[in-house]
């Protein structure tokens, strides 16, 4: 075996994923090679199971492990922080819906993903309600509320995704009076864990607009457009109590004096 280090590593990876690696004949055929194959795959599968616990509850351990292994072979991690692994796993589940026949599985996976993102986000300062005191309506209109890095939100028109996710994640019984309507959720990560709460369609549009850099006035218009009977003051109050925003910034020539 007269391979350069790079040639050896290229061939080793090919063999690891059971692709032809003739340069490594005599190595990949050893029974011990399976130790590496199994460990790499198990590391990926374990990470996906840890990152998508609600999905695992819904489909069962055996199906989860089998599907995670298929995904891992196609999409190995790109980041050694395995808590970040699986960003495209929800889309993968959506693509193979015919295999699991659970129409809401990908959406529940998206909530698991957002939970993990909120859990592992860097700490950022939080908007203090005192900052809003003494501001003029013009200040407020032109101010921008930026969601914190640890805030994640999701809206699903087709399924009660928050209830589905919560029942799976917290092993709760399905509420017998739960209507099958669209639901959203807000996750906010803190130093102690992740808080979650229901979020309406208007709240979802509002956070999306804030994240896109729209002014408070523009964002509130978009929120009201998305949810015509929205109680905007109540919604904003709940988002602030949830510590969803960073301290204020201002657009244009308007500055908080």
């Amino acid at each position, binding site marked *: *075996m*007269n*391979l*350069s*280090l*790079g040639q*050896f*590593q*290229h061939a*080793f*990876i090919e063999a*690891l994923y059971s692709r032809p690696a003739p340069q490594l004949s*005599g*190595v990949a055929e*050893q*029974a*011990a*090679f*399976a*130790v*590496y194959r199994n*460990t*790499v795959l198990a*590391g*990926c599968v374990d*990470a996906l199971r840890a990152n998508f616990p609600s999905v695992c509850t819904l489909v069962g351990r055996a199906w989860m492990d089998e599907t995670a292994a298929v995904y891992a072979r196609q999409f*190995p*991690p*790109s*980041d*050694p*922080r*395995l*808590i*970040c692994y699986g960003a495209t796993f929800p889309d993968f589940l959506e693509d193979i819906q015919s295999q699991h026949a659970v129409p809401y599985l990908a959406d529940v996976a998206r909530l698991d993903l957002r939970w993990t993102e*909120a*859990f*592992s*986000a*860097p*700490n950022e300062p939080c908007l203090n309600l005192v900052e809003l005191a003494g501001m003029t309506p013009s200040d407020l209109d032109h101010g921008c509320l930026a969601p914190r*890095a*640890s805030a994640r939100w999701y809206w699903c028109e087709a399924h009660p995704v928050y209830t589905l996710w919560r029942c799976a994640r917290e092993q709760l019984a399905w509420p017998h009076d739960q209507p099958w309507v669209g639901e959203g959720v807000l996750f906010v*990560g*803190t*130093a*102690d*864990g992740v808080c979650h709460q229901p979020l309406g369609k208007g709240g979802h549009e509002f956070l999306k607009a804030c994240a896109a850099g729209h002014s408070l006035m523009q964002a509130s218009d978009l929120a009201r457009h998305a949810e015509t009977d929205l109680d905007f003051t109540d919604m904003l109050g709940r988002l602030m109590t949830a510590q969803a925003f960073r301290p204020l910034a201002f657009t244009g020539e308007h500055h908080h004096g």
Partner: protein
Amino acid sequence: MNADARMGAGISLKAEHYDQALACNLEGLWFEVHPENYMVGGPRLAWLNRIAERHPVSLHGVALSLAADAAPDQDHLQRLRALCDQTEPVLVSEHLAWSTWQGHYHPDLLPFPRSNEALQRIAENIQRCQEVLGRRISIENPSHYLQLQGHDWDEIDFLGELTRRTGCGLLLDINNVYVSAHNLGFSATAYLDRFPAQTITEIHLAGHSDDDQANLLIDSHDAQVAEPVWALYRQLVSRVGPRPTLIERDDKLPPFTELLAERSIAQSIMTCPGVLP
């Protein structure tokens, strides 16, 4: 920074044991974590910071991929630097292995032929890490399963040459030596007798499992330290003196008190190598 006098025997720290670890005040106790699990914000980092305020902490990496034919990932290295700045670890270590290749991470510690080319590349990678981190790191001897061709260097000479070229320390994993000796057919005692004592900054002890079908021992970290590994440890400490020693456990996690009991055996041997557990 080298290991300091506060370090006796330590335990690898898992999230399940955070509260007990934080409250424990045994003399000489320290904790080791994989930094990749803490290179994020949120509760995990907050927990580690609280532990680091009360106990010496060691960062034991699994993903610098020092033996890859590529420089260490800059983003990863900068994250490790930031974690070092935040937690001020007493030790930082990595494996003589590779795990990343062409933008993908393959979660294992992969082998390579100990060639002259590999020696040059790994020495450069260690130097680069030490420059960015602003500190000395230690390199761990790997577990072996495969018979590889193309070695220009014996493992101990290879490790010794790395210490000479880079000033790095060595993390001696005695379970890895035991497992590798079984799998590749060499004498663990002879290996340890040759291991350069003055470069050892830390010792690892762990459990292993049997793969009867393939006649292999697996470095699984899912069981208590086996008696033959304790015997090798006693012999080594008799020869080289006490070094900070870790009870490494990653799977089938027992109660914290069980890990403390294993840790107390290591602590006793550090004090008196002739003692029987």
